[in-house]
Every structure is written in C-alpha cells, then in structure tokens.
C-alpha cells in the first residue's frame, strides 16, 4: 500500500507533493516520490539535482512520512515511470499536478497527466497549483 506522486520543482509539482504528503500521513502509508527525466537534453530543470533531493528528503522526514524518492533515468516518458512506480508499489492513490495548457499546446504535445489519468490502475488525484 502506498501513495505515488509525480514530482517536478514547479508550483503544480509542489501542490501535488503537498497533497500527497497529507494523503500518505492520513493513511499511514509509504509515499513514493517519482522525479524523472528522459535524459536526452543536456539540461532539464524539472529533474532535481542532488542538493534539491537532499532538501526534499529532509522535508519529508520532518513531515514524518515514510518515503521513497525515485529518480529513474531510463529514457522513458515521465508518465510511464509514474505508472510503473504505481504498479510496483501497489499504489492505492496516484497524485499528479495539472498545469494550464493551451489548446494548441495540447494538440502538439502529448499530455503526461492525461496518460496517467487514463492508464493508471489506481485512483488518480489531479491537483491544480
């Protein structure tokens, strides 16, 4: 039993994380934080660096939730990584952040959130910033 959250260092990601912490604490379950990148660009600001990861770990400790930070770099889609983490840790809840997308943006780029919503086996909680 666990709560899986897809985390990126943006307002949406923070909102999702905060909600996920609350959910994990109230359920007393493991919190799995997934932060991933396809790793094909030289720079990805959404992938948290060591310093940020340490800060995150400290924060989760202070919140008093049992947690696990996953940073897989396998060239997969972020959606895929979140879904896989959810399967592996038998998630009973997946938390994701939603951001505003323009119609054109939605048309051109696939939506990570949409894939998770449609394909996750567990209930998905979508949080807005």
């Amino acid at each position, binding site marked *: 039993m666990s709560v899986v959250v897809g985390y990126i260092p943006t307002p949406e990601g923070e909102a999702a994380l905060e909600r996920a912490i609350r959910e994990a604490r109230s359920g007393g379950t493991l919190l799995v934080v997934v932060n991933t990148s396809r790793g*094909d660009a*030289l720079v990805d600001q959404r992938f948290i660096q060591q310093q940020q990861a340490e800060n995150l770990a400290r924060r989760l400790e202070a919140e008093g939730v049992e947690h696990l930070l996953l940073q897989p770099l*396998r060239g997969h889609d972020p959606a895929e990584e979140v879904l896989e983490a959810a399967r592996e840790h038998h998630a009973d809840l997946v938390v994701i952040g939603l951001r505003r997308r323009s119609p054109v943006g939605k048309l051109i780029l696939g939506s990570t959130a949409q894939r998770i919503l449609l394909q996750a086996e567990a209930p998905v909680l979508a949080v807005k910033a």
Partner: protein
Amino acid sequence: METLNLLMQGFATAATPMNLLFALVGVVLGTAVGVLPGIGPAMAVALLLPVTYNLEPTSAFIMFAGIYYGGMYGGSTTSILLNTPGESATVITAIEGHKMAKAGRAAQALATAAIGSFVAGTIGTALLVAFAPLVVKFAVSLGAPTYLAIMVLALIAVTAVLGSSKLRGFASLGIGLAIGLIGLDPVSGQQRLIFGQPLLIDGLDIVVVAVAIFAVGEALWTAAHLRRKPMSTIPVGRPWMGRQDWKRSWKPWLRGTAYGFPFGALPAGGAEIPTFLSYITEKKLSKHPEEFGHGAIEGVAGPEAANNASAAGTLTPMLALGLPTNATAAVMLAAFIQFGIQPGPLLFEKEPDLVWALIASLFIGNTLLLLVNLPLAPMWAKLLRLPRPYLYAGILFFATLGAYAVNLQAFDLVILLVLGSLGFAMRRYGLPVLPLIIGLILGPRAEEQLRQSLQLSGGEISGLWSEPLAIVIYCIVVVVLLLPLIIALVRKARGGRPSTLEEVTMGATPEAAEHHAVHRSAGTRNPQDTENATENKEKV
C-alpha cells in the same frame, strides 16, 4: 592611410543590407553552436560549406566570421550557467564564472564576459588590421623553403603544443596528411593511395572530409552517450553590471587582450595558454585575491577577453599567410579553396574586396554579438533544454545532404560514412581532431612548397635550408619538440614541485577540477577539448 581606405571600402561592402543579414545569421548561428557543448563553430562552418556554394564568396565569409566570433560568446554562457565549458578556452571562465553564478552574480558574470569579449574582439580586430598588411609585406619576400619551414612549424606546433598526448597528436596528424595525399601527384600526375578506385583520382573533397570528421563523427559520438543525467542551469535575468563591477573589469579586459592577441597570432598559440596566463595575472594583481576560487569578477573578465583576442589573433596568420591554427580557421581556409581563392600572402593583393569586407564584418559582427548576447543570454541558456536526438538527427541530415550536394556523387556518401566512423573512433580513443584537419589542409600546400624548393635546388636536399630564415624556423621546431622533454627532466631533477598553474586550477578550486572530471566521464563535452583542458592542468 591606405589600409584605412581599404578598410572603409570593406565596411561599404559589409554594410549592405544583404551582407548585414548574413552577418546577423552568422552571429546567431555562432552563438547557438557555441552555447551547445559538443557542437562548435568548426562544425557549423563545415555544415554550411555546401550550402554556400552558390553564394557570393564575400557574403559566405561574412557569415563564417560571425559564426567564428559567435562561438566564443556562446561558449562563455554555457561555462558560467552550467559549468560545462564548450571548449578548452573557456575552462577558466567556468571556474570563476560558475562560482559567481552560484553566488547569485550570474548576471554580472555574463555581462563582464560579453562586454569583455566585445572590447577584446574589437581591439584584436584593430590589431589584425594593423599587423596583417605588415605580415603580408614581409611574407611576399619569402621563398618556398621558408614557407615550407613555416608550415612545418605550424603542423608540428599544433600537434605537439596543444593536446594531451603527443603520440595521439602525431597519429592524428599522420592520418590527416595521408588523406591529403589521396589523388594525383600534382607534379608527375602519378596516382597515389587510390587503390584502383577511379572515383578517388580527384582526391577527397575537403568539404566532405570536414563534414564527416566534425559533424558525423561528433553525432555518432554523442549518440553513443545519449542518455545522461541532466544538469540544471542557474536561472538568470538580463545581464548587467554595477559601477564596482565596471571598475574591477576594465583593466583585466585590456590585460587579457594583450595576452590573447599575440598568442593567437603565433602558429601554435591557441586560446588556452593566454586564458591561463591572464587568470594567473589577475589573481596576482587583484585587490581581492581572497575572492579567487569563489567567484572573482576579474577571473571572468580577463580570461574571456584573452579568449576573444586570441580568436582575432588567429586570423592574422590565416589571412596573411594562409596558415590556420585552429579548427574553425582551418575549415574557413577550406572554404577559400572551395571558392577557388588561393590562400596565402597574395590574398590581400588578389582579393582585397573580400579580405577587407571580411575584416570589416568582424567589427560589425562583434557589435551585433554584444547586442544579441547581452539582452538575450537567458534565452540562449534555454537552448540547452533541446532534446539532443532531434538536434543530432538534424545535423546528420544536413551532413548527408551537404556531402551529396558537393559533387552529386553517391560515392561521397560512402566516404562520409567511412570518415565519419573514423571521426567517431578518434573521439573514442582520445585522438585530437585538430591535427588531422590542419594536416589535411596544410599537407598538400606544404608538399607544393617542398616540390618547388627541390625543383629550385635541382633536387639537392640542402635547398630546403638555403634561406637563413628557414634555418631559424627549423631551430624553433626543434625547440618546440625538445622543450617539454627538457622541462620534464629539469622538474624531475628538482623533485617535481607543482607549478603555479597547478595550484590555481587544482589547489584553489578543487571543486571545479572535480566538476570537470565529472563532465569528462559524462561525455557531455568534446573529448578532444576535455583532453586539452585536463592536459593544461597536468602539463604546465
């Protein structure tokens, strides 16, 4: 006075709307390739060579000049914001610049780098205007034996002074010279190294070789290292400098320029040595020595100026003697040959319009670069988020298209693939690419001078040192070859005291040195550059 008139004419040619547009395209492209580690101005010019076939040579060279200077500006942005020097010349910028950025002074670091580059580039180009005609005047009086000696010096110096391993350097030079031999003997018409393949009789097209080695080789190398832990850049606003920053920057700019230009103008100066020298000088002269290693603005201003001044200096032997000493100059020289323009001392006489328009466009390009870089630095940093598969797929596509377009000959694609694999193998085994390309371009021209000297002396080998200057230059060649050995012996005898430079790069900033080691293993940088960078720490 005459020079000034010619320069003004050059400005008139370079300032037409069409040529200004080419200059703008050049500086934008140059900055872009400078920002992206692994892709350099040499690759950009090589890729554009086939495209510029139908252009007016002057317009093409105005664009190339923009790319050449732009690469220098772009490299400093990446060094400062990401601590990934795009090339060996910006290693020092990365040391202090990245520290500044981490301390929240990224805007000032970027500003001092850009303005310093502008100051140094402008002064350097002015020095080029002053010195190149003098060098030409001197050079036209030289005979074939002296020319041969100068070319030998350039070949040996580029191979032996730059780069980590001399053995690898000479191996690479040998490959370049061998590729240059393919085809018909220019004097006797004998076939050389064509292995019964009639399509090789005309020799290998330099454009195809340059595209294969720079573009295909690099693309394959990056493809082999594609998935890496992404890094994060330091967010930055618009670059600006306070009063105090100006006060601390202007002297290092001028001193850096003074170091950079002469080293660039030497046949094997390169940009690394002057940047290191400038850094050491600034550290000694600074009123804030305690800041060095923690982000001192002088440590960015000086080396960046030295870097750009050396780029201007490199153009002096390139234009006045036809001697390229860095990869971009070599590819630009290949472009001269492609346009049917004979590089060498007669260039100023035969193609004054082209040469002076090119020099004038350096002034214009430098100004454009300041305008493009200062306000837009944060935008350039975003370029680093580009997914590299798309980028390198595009490069491979352009490389293939270009190589085929040169002669509309499918066989060239085979050559492209073979030499591209060679370029990949060279990166894999740490062979520097620069000696190859210089050997390829200078080799046939050195041979011409050799044959001419021998014809003049009736086949007597002593004809090669029949001019006093040639003897002097051969002595310098011997010194260049022996000096490192002697230094090593002396140091051994003294018990190997670490030099100042080592203290600077290793001692003062262990973290930076460590960082470089990390990048090296990550393969995000051109391995040749990495070799050079680490070499500079070991060597001096």
